[in-house]
C-alpha cells in the first residue's frame, strides 16, 4: 500500500528545493538542466503510478508525453487558441489516448503488455512523423507559453518558467500520491498484486486499469505541454520509443513503486549525463556502466535501497525495545 512517509516527503522536498536553488544561483544553463530534470521526473512519476503500483509497465509514455506536446502545439501554433485552453485540450487528448491504450491492453501482461504499449507508442510516432499538417520531422515552431502577467509573473523569463516547472513537478507528485492513498489507488495496488483475486472479489479490473492508465497519461501529457512551452518548438523526436525507455530507466533507477524514487532517478541520470558529457563525447559508455552497476548492486533502485535500509534500521530498533 502507498503511504506518504517522512522519507518520501523529504526526498521530494530535497529534490524540489535543490533544483530551485540550482536554478536561481546556477546561471543560465543550470535552468535548462533543472527543467530537463523536472520534466523527466514528472513523466517518471506518472509512469511509476501504473508501473510500480499497478504492475503495468508501459513503454509508450514517451509517446503520450509527445501527444500532450503536439496537442498543445497544434492548438496554439496552428489553431491560434489561447494557451490555457490549449493546455486543457492537450491534457484531455493525452488522457483519452491513455484510456484507449489501457483498455486495449488490459488483457495482456508481462512482456506482452510492454510490447503492446510499445506498438501503440510507435503508431502515434509514425502518425505524427508522417503528418505534413503537424510539420513532419521539420517540427512545429511558434509555440507560446502561458500568460501569467495578470498575477505579475513573466513566464518569458527563464528563471520564473523554471520555477513553474519545478512547482508542476511537485504538484504532479502530490496528485499521484493523493490518488494512490485514495480507494482508487488502493484498488490499483490490489490489481497490481493479484489481478485474479481482485476479479474474484467482483471488480471489473479492465475498467480500473484503463482509468488508471488514463490518469497517468494525463500527468504525462501535462509534462508534454510544459516541454512544448519550454522550447517553444516540438518535433517527432519527443515520441521516439527511447524516450519511453529513458523514463522507465529513471523509474527503475530511482526505485520502482516508491513514487519519490523517480525524482531522485531523474536527478541522477540527467546530472550524470551532463557531468560526464562535459568530459567526453562518449558519455553513453559511462552512463551505461553506472546503470549496470546500480542494478547489480541493489536492484531496488537508489531511493528504494535507501528506504529499505531505513526500514531495516527501524525494524531493528523496534526489535531492540
Amino acid at each position, binding site marked *: 500500500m502507498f503511504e506518504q512517509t517522512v522519507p518520501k516527503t523529504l526526498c521530494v522536498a530535497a529534490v524540489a528545493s535543490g533544483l530551485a536553488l540550482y536554478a536561481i544561483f546556477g*546561471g*543560465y*544553463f543550470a535552468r*535548462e538542466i533543472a527543467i*530537463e530534470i523536472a520534466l523527466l521526473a514528472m513523466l517518471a512519476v506518472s509512469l511509476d503510478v501504473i508501473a510500480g503500483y499497478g504492475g503495468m509497465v508501459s513503454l509508450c509514455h514517451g509517446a503520450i508525453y509527445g501527444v500532450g506536446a503536439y496537442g498543445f502545439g497544434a492548438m496554439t501554433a496552428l489553431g491560434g487558441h489561447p494557451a490555457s485552453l490549449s493546455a486543457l485540450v492537450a491534457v484531455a487528448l493525452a488522457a483519452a489516448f491513455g484510456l484507449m491504450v489501457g483498455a486495449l491492453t488490459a488483457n495482456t501482461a508481462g512482456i506482452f503488455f510492454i510490447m503492446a504499449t510499445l506498438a501503440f507508442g510507435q503508431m502515434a510516432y509514425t502518425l505524427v*512523423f*508522417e503528418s505534413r499538417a503537424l510539420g*513532419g*520531422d*521539420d*517540427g512545429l*515552431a*511558434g509555440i507560446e507559453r502561458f500568460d501569467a502577467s495578470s498575477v505579475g509573473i513573466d513566464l518569458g523569463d*527563464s528563471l520564473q518558467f523554471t520555477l513553474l516547472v519545478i512547482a508542476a513537478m511537485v504538484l504532479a507528485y502530490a496528485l499521484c500520491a493523493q490518488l494512490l492513498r485514495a480507494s482508487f489507488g488502493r484498488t490499483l495496488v490490489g490489481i497490481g498484486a493479484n489481478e485474479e483475486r481482485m476479479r474474484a472479489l467482483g471488480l471489473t479490473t479492465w475498467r480500473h486499469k484503463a482509468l488508471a492508465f488514463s490518469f497517468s497519461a494525463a500527468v504525462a501529457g501535462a509534462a508534454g505541454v510544459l*516541454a512544448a512551452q*519550454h*522550447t*517553444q*518548438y*516540438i*518535433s517527432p*523526436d*519527443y515520441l521516439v520509443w527511447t524516450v519511453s525507455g529513458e523514463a522507465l530507466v529513471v523509474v527503475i533507477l530511482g526505485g520502482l513503486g516508491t513514487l519519490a524514487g523517480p525524482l531522485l532517478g531523474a536527478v541522477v541520470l540527467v546530472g550524470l549525463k551532463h557531468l560526464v*558529457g562535459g568530459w567526453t*563525447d*562518449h*558519455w*553513453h559508455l559511462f552512463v551505461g556502466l553506472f546503470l549496470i552497476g546500480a542494478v547489480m548492486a541493489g536492484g531496488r533502485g537508489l531511493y528504494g535501497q535507501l528506504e529499505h535500509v531505513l526500514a531495516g534500521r527501524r525494524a531493528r530498533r523496534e526489535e531492540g525495545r
Partner: protein
Amino acid sequence: MNKSTIAALAATLAAAASVGTALAETKVGLLLPKSGVYAALGDEIDQGFVLALEEAGMSDEIEIVREDTEVKPPVGLAKARKLVLQDEVDVIVGVVSSAVLGAMRDFVDGAEVPLIVANAGNVAATGADCSPYIVRVSFSNAQINRPMGTWMAEQGVEKVYTLAPDYAAGRQMIEAFTASFTAAGGEVVGSAFTPFGKTQDFGPYLAKARAASPDAVYVFYAGGEAISFVKQYDSFGLKENIPLYGSGFLTSPLYVEAQGSAATGVFGALHYVPTLDTPENEAFVETFRAKHERQPSEYAVQGYDAARVLLEAIGSGAEDRRSLAEALPKGSYTGPRGPLEIDPATNNVVQNIYVYETVAEGEGLTQRIVASVPAVRDEANGCAL
C-alpha cells in the same frame, strides 16, 4: 617621479589598455553533433573550421566554445541558449540537422545573435523563415538538385524514377529535381519515399523502380542509407541498364570508399568535390591531407568556408554581434569550392554546383567532374530581408 612622467605613464597605460580591447577575442560557439547519427559530419565540419583558423594564423584571436547538439532539437536549442546567454558568444557556427535549426531559429532571431549555418539544408531557413541574423554557407536542399534536373534532361534522359527517404529534406530534394527536370522536358515516371532511417533493405523499392522502366533513377540518400542503397543497387545489376544519378551525398567522399566498386559510374551533383582543379582547392586538399590523412569532404569545406566568411567579417572591422550580423552577408571570396558569395536577398550562399561521376582510380575511387553549373542562386521563396 614628477607629474609629467606620471601623466605620460598614465597615457601610455591608457593607450595600451585600449589597444588591448581592440585586440579582444571573438568568441565563437561551435554547435555541432558530437554523438548520435551525424557525429562524423560534426567532426568534419569542426576540422575544416579549425584548419581555416590555423591557416589564417587567427587561432589565438578566436575563442571557440564547443557544444554537442546530440542531433536532438530540444538539446540543440538548450545548448544554443547556453552559448548565447551564459557563454555570451559573439557568433554561433554549425548546426548539421535541419530539425535543430528549426528549433533554434526563433531564438537566434529574437536574441539577435549571428548564426553561420554550416550544413542544415532546409529550404525554409533561407526562404519563408529567413532572418537577417542567419547566414548559410553550406547549401540549400533545392540548390543541389535543381541543376541536376536541367543537366540530365540536356543529356537526353527522358524518363526518371525517383527515390528518397520520407522526411522533410528528402522531399525537398526530390521536389527541386522534379520541378527543374519536368520544366526541361523530362518525365518522372514514378517515385517512392522510403521510411526514414528505418529502411535498410531497399530491395522492394528497387524492384518497383525496375518495373517502371525508366531511363535513369534519381535519388537522395546520405550516410549509412547511401552506402546500403548504392551497394544494393549494384547487387541487383540495375546499373547496366538503368544508370544511377543522385544528389552528390549519395557518393560523398566521406564514405564512398565503403561503397567500393558499387559506386563506379554513379553520377552526382555537389557544391564541392575534392578533385576540383583550382589552385585554392589544391592548397586546401594538401593542407587537409597533411593533417588528417584523408581526402576532405564537402562537410570539411563547409566548416572551412564558415571560418573564412567569419574571418572576412572580422577583418572588415566587425567585432560585436550587431556588426558581425551586418558584415557576414557581405562575405565573398574564392575558396576551395570556387567563387562563393552570400545572396543578400536570402542570406543563402551562391556557389557553383559540380556534376561528377565516381570512377575507379588505382586502389580507390575518385570523382571526375563532367559539368560545372556556375553561380547557382536560390529564389527568395518567401524571404523578405
